[in-house]
């Protein structure tokens, strides 16, 4: 996916951006990427706009746009530090080992306030519940003679490996009576090292579980991280650590994982951490792998300008209605008798095949004769709908058609955006040709690539504007929104057309000028639309129609 959350004209500066220090928080990708202030974009129509490398430093920190959010990428080490900081905070308050505080925080799903409150109230109960307290004195058969166990039982759950007990010992799990090595938690329940290792492996690898308790059936004692790291293999220990930090990030509203499969970057976006903030902003963020996603709902795409709640409604609707939609969507069908293709024209459902004169109903594909005098509407459709769709009884044909109108445009932009990516590779070829046939430098032929990037980005915006328009209440505000939508759509179609036109090597300077102008215009239209919608959320200008009515009340 191309980078689509930003609108600067040169991105060569950002390519290495994230590599500066693996171990530190990587700072504000957005601010420094947005070097194009409105002023600099006004000048972008200038012939040099695509060639000049604007450095973020030269422009200083530009105020971010109304539809953008500040965010930063956290490295694994940074996540660890945040996690440990929380643990140390709690440890400091109650005089605990940080490792114990960690276990308590995980037990409370990282709700620090609740933990503090409950711990103040009844520390013993919390410890017992979490599995921190050592169990009552050990059964005499287990290695009660181990001094190491006694010593460590003092505080945390951590443990020294207990020397094989002097009394005859048999591992209660594998029944081996001469294990080379045994371990026990502070409770003293000893098991052979092989069993511990296998147990931890099963928990961590197969069950994806990071909470590991003593193997004894009546003992709830938790193994702390140090014990796990000591006993299990390096890979399992690493996996355990991953599970632990996933749990930390997953339980916080301030941090989110990149939702793309296999990607493990963590993003922090404080301005979108509260649920209420998501009523007015669409926090689009990007991980260092250039995966664009929404911090609010973790959707793996930029769904600006539509806020998370309504986007979800729309996606749900598309899913629920897809069967019905696909069924009616296509505007051609095959004659039920002779299979020749018939195109529907106008709104009449009474179809007559030109070839065989077969008369049938467009909606249900049944013979027209059976429709009797219900010629204006297809009852059989209503029937069918009643069976098929969940809320079909209340759904009128009209509202379905309304939905389809928006849906078709949504789907068209989605499809065209994908096609524009195909165009991308063609464009690359063209650029190579241009470079060889003209005296242009590499940087000078970037204009076509920029154009494709921009088309993709704006089609994504347009796609979501149709979902938004579907839910906007009728009125002046919606009309203004649709004006912006229309302007952007027209600009995008113009630029797309130009991109697909043949390249005449003699005319490159002219084409370049033209394409550059149009790209800048498209970019500007997109910005206007996004800025206006973002502003509209803040001003409370957007009112939703009955399909999203819950949201009006929530305001």
């Amino acid at each position, binding site marked *: 996916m191309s980078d689509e959350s930003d609108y600067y004209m040169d991105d060569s500066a950002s390519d290495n951006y994230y590599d500066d220090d693996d171990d530190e928080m990587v700072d504000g990708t957005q601010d420094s990427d947005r070097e194009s202030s409105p002023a600099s974009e006004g000048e972008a129509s200038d012939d040099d706009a695509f060639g000049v490398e604007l450095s973020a430093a030269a422009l200083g920190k530009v105020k971010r746009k109304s539809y953008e959010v500040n965010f930063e990428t956290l490295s694994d080490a940074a996540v660890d530090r945040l996690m440990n900081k929380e643990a140390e905070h709690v440890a400091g308050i109650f005089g605990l080992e940080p490792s114990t505080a960690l276990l308590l925080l995980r037990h409370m799903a990282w709700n620090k306030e609740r933990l503090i409150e409950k711990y103040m109230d009844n520390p013993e109960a919390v410890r017992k519940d979490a599995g921190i307290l050592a169990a009552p004195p050990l059964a005499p058969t287990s290695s009660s003679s181990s001094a190491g166990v006694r010593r460590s039982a003092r505080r945390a759950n951590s443990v020294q490996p207990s020397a094989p007990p002097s009394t005859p010992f048999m591992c209660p*799990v594998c029944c081996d009576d001469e294990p080379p090595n045994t371990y026990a938690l502070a409770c003293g329940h000893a*098991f052979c090292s092989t069993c511990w290792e296998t*147990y931890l492996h099963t*928990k961590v690898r197969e*069950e994806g579980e990071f909470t590991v308790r003593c*193997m004894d*059936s009546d003992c709830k004692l938790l193994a702390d991280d140090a014990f796990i790291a000591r006993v299990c293999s390096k890979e399992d220990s690493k996996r355990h650590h991953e599970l632990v930090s996933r749990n930390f990030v997953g339980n916080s509203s301030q941090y989110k994982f990149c939702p793309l499969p296999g990607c493990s970057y963590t993003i922090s976006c404080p301005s979108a951490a509260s649920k209420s903030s998501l009523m007015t902003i669409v926090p689009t963020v990007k991980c260092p792998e250039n995966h664009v996603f929404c911090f609010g709902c973790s959707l793996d795409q930029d769904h600006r300008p539509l806020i998370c709640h309504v986007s979800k409604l729309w996606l749900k609707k598309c899913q629920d209605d897809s069967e019905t939609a696909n069924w009616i969507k296509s505007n051609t069908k095959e004659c039920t008798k002779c299979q020749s293709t018939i195109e529907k024209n106008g709104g009449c459902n009474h179809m007559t095949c030109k070839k065989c004169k077969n008369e049938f109903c467009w909606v249900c594909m049944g013979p027209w004769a059976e429709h009797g005098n219900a010629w204006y509407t297809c009852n059989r459709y209503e029937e069918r709908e009643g069976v098929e769709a969940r809320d079909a009884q209340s759904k009128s044909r009209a509202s379905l058609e309304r939905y389809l109108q928006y849906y078709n445009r949504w789907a068209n932009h989605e499809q065209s955006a994908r096609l524009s990516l195909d165009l991308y590779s063609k464009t690359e070829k063209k650029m190579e040709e241009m470079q060889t046939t003209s005296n242009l430098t590499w940087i000078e032929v970037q204009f076509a690539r920029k154009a494709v990037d921009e088309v993709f980005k704006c089609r994504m915006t347009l796609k979501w504007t149709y979902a938004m328009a579907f839910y906007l209440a009728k009125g002046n505000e919606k009309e203004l929104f649709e004006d912006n939508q229309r302007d952007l759509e027209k600009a995008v179609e113009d630029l797309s057309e130009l991109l697909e036109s043949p390249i005449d090597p003699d005319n490159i300077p002219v084409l370049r000028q033209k394409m550059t102008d149009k790209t800048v215009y498209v970019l500007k239209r997109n910005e206007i639309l996004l800025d206006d919608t973002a502003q509209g959320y803040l001003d409370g200008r957007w009112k939703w129609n009955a399909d999203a009515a819950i949201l009006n009340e929530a305001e």
Partner: protein
Amino acid sequence: MADARTRRVKKEIQDIQNDRQAGLTIELVNDSIFHLIGSFPGPPGTCYEGGKFDVDIVVPETYPFVALKMKFLSKVYHPNISSASGAICLDILKDNWSPILTLKSTLISLQSLLCTPEPNDPQDAEVAKHYLTSKSSFEETARYWTETYARPQTNEGRGAPSGTSKTSHLPTVRDEVAMAGLERAHVEQFEALGFERGRVIEVLKRINYRGANVPKISEDTVVEELLK
């Protein structure tokens, strides 16, 4: 590890066979020590007394680090056991499994599960509702199920256990009304309105038409349900 697993399971089987007092039995299915049928007597003083309950047991690859897979082969009327599939809702077979639990200790836990139903964490919601509405009626039904489905078998047909339920040996005539834990009079009342017996039983069972619920559910409501 495979050796350790074999060693342990063999020892566990022996433990059960050596301890005649507990009344547990264990048999191999298809000569595999990893697929077994265990059984235990219904606990005395309960509505399961006198029954012999068969349990299908699969020993997973990673045993004993993960729980034994168990389900009842005998049909049991109990809130935490599915009356249809025999699936069991018991913490030690899930999150609270511990590697030191064994075939024997788990079978004993199942036995004690029969003594202590947990209707608030049900596996079979209909049975649980019945239990909560009228314990005596529930017990009567559970006793009827025990007599019908969990009769101790003589050793015939035991040579080659197939893993299938013993229900095939059952008497064919069963009292559907008693099986469902309903009142004969209630079933007949709606049958008289022209509804089929099977349908009446199904609906009355679902809406828990028992004990104190009966005066709260109007005849019309029942008819509406029957017509659905």
